């Protein structure tokens, strides 16, 4: 009853890669800006972001579902039961995590290094770029964690995607339906494919991170 495994794996990769990259585009610049702020105002922001860490993906899925349903405020976009809708749901889950890690990593760039940049005459933008460079390894970690969350996510993509054959079937939702139909061997196979994809992406990202070692 499941569709073509290649198409399923491809869609998983497409949705997860898109949501990870989009989340990075939002979370990394925002995380650098917020991480550089003075400690006082940072505490409130930190608490807010950390609360979003605890947002269960299924809840994010429900919220996006209600948003995208024809009934809902963004219904005219017709994004429910589509890959883009799934990407949106995953961004809601992944972006806060990446934001939090980036903020932490930026804040812990050694204060003296930031001061040195200032002493050398860096303006705000140049300081941000320098800190980004110093925190590079940590930011790659944020991307790895974000991707991990995205590719293994099942609740939100099931609710928003609907696991429609030829459309919105991904590796994780296929495992769930396989189990429901007691097709355990197929589920294991899908699981192995998922792990292989994840491992490949991680090894690539890890290699990126290694370039950070000066």
């Amino acid at each position, binding site marked *: 009853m499941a569709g073509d495994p290649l198409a399923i794996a491809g869609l998983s990769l497409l949705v997860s890669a898109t949501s990870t990259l989009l989340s990075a585009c939002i979370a990394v610049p925002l995380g650098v800006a917020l991480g550089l702020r003075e400690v006082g105002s940072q505490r409130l922001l930190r608490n807010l972001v950390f609360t979003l860490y605890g947002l269960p993906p299924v809840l994010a899925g429900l919220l996006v579902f209600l948003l995208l349903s024809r009934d809902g405020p963004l219904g005219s976009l017709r994004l429910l039961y589509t890959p883009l809708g799934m990407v949106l749901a995953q961004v809601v889950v992944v972006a806060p995590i990446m934001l939090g890690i980036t903020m932490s990593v930026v804040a812990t760039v050694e204060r003296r*290094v930031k001061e040195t*940049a200032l*002493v050398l005459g860096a*303006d705000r933008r140049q300081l941000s770029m320098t800190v980004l*460079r110093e925190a590079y390894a940590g930011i790659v970690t944020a991307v790895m964690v974000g991707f991990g969350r995205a590719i293994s996510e099942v609740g939100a993509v099931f609710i928003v995607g609907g696991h429609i054959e030829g459309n919105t079937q991904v590796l994780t939702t296929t495992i769930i339906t396989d189990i429901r139909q007691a097709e355990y061997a197929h589920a294991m196979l899908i699981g192995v494919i998922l792990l292989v994809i994840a491992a490949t992406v991680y090894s690539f990202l890890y290699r990126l991170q290694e370039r950070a070692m*000066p």
Partner: protein
Amino acid sequence: MTMALTLEGLRKTFGDRAVLRGVDLHVEPGAVFALLGPSGVGKTTLLRCVDFLLPADAGTVLFGGRRAPPDAPGQLGLRRRIGMVAQNPYLFRGTVAYNVSFGLCVRGVEGEELERRTAEAMRLVGLEDRGGAPAGKLSAGEAQRVAFARAIVVRPELLLLDEFTANLDPANVRILETAVREFQRTTGATVLLVTHNLFQARRLAARAGLLLDGVIVETGEAKAFFEDPKDARTRAFVQGDFAY
């Protein structure tokens, strides 16, 4: 290009500890001035107030006879005319050349001029063929030399040195002191050298002063300061009567 530095009644308190209690100091343009004092007396605090890293509680700092501009871009412009080398190098992730050329890049220098000036600065500290070396793999002495080159490549008019050769071996100390002399000679910049090393102060400075208990106790021309100080406390300090 050079500038005078004047401090008037500078005060700074941390919590209930008053570190600077009204510091008055004047350094002539182009002079090399050694600020001495025991460890922890507030010399670093003073430098950090001068370079806008700490806001003073009271008092004024005059650069070339004028106060710092109140607006941020003005302050940034002034800051770019001042250089500082701290006790630890705090190098950026990257190569030696990346570090040395940092300040030039900040100021929009690029291309051939950037390469030329970077090479010149690295030559001054004896690292001309280490441009591609990663900053993390340098020895302590080499790293500090990079930090020095990074600070002076932009030709600051005022150079602040905060115990910049502390903990280094004699060979590296020699290289750095030669670099300071050469830099000062070619650019005529004003140099404020903070140190507790009397010998270094004697080697490098034309004038000296003693910071004690939050105020400047005495200043004077170097020879007179070290051999025949007027104040009893200065005498006790230069004679090594109390630990520093």
